[in-house]
């Protein structure tokens, strides 16, 4: 099954990369951009038939490896 994991920086955590990208867009003349946040998305292919089982395995992977709970939240989406 295909699984998409969206790893999302918690909103109160500084995002220097986003801030720098914003500045660069302004320099290029895109002054209409108000904010930029840069996140990670992971695409997994996982063996299994039961979407619920797959989801809970991937949840576990997120907790143990894929996301950093101190800085990030995550969302798991199983799309066949």
């Amino acid at each position, binding site marked *: 099954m295909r699984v998409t994991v969206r790893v999302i920086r918690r909103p109160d955590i500084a995002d*220097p*990369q986003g801030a*720098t*990208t914003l500045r*660069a867009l302004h*320099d*290029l003349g895109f002054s209409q951009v108000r904010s930029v946040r*840069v996140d990670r998305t992971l695409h997994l292919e996982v063996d299994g038939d039961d979407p619920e089982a797959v989801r809970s395995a991937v949840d576990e992977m997120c907790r143990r490896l894929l996301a950093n709970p101190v800085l990030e939240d995550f969302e798991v989406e199983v799309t066949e």
Partner: protein
Amino acid sequence: MSPVTAVVVFPGTNCERDVIRALRALGGEAEAVWHRDADLSGFAGVVLPGGFAHGDYLRPGAIAATSPIMAAVRRMAGEGRPVLGICNGWQVLCEAGLLPGAHIANRDLRFICRFVEVEVVDTDTVLTSTLQVGQVLRIPLNSYEGAWVDPSGEGRVVLRYRDDPNGSQGRAAAVADGRGNVVGVMPHPERAVDHLTGSTDGVPLLESYLAALERLPVHA
């Protein structure tokens, strides 16, 4: 007066002083130029030094490639003047489309700072004109996103790693454009100009570059 090299400083660049020092030690003349300057007239060549322009945020070299000075660098390249990108400078040249390909993270996802051996495979460039094909040089590598990829297959490999430290395509350590006046190199020749700090194998590379400066007259 000897021809002057512009050493471009982006915010986050950190090897500019080293490059200037090394070029001067070899009898060249070089000056730092800020990335917002749009004018490189009076300079005979340009070096984009290593470092972390704009923190390497987004992609290394990506934001720097949009700086005002890059139009002038492009012009210099078009005129056939020597344009040398070292490490981060090579990444900028790729992002600006002045050299083919792009860079991705080292295979082992670790920063690498150590001496590596590279072999000269092409001497028809501003970086290697005084060398011999097959010559082996020992110079320091210092990068995280050091692996070059080039789906187009257009890049001319100039130096090749003897082992494979980072997964670079064709073990490329330096790549030139078709004319050989624009060159990107991942290891740092300016860090190998003094026995005391470990090697002088960068000297012939920088000397090739300095020699190339003499070839075209400089207009003010």
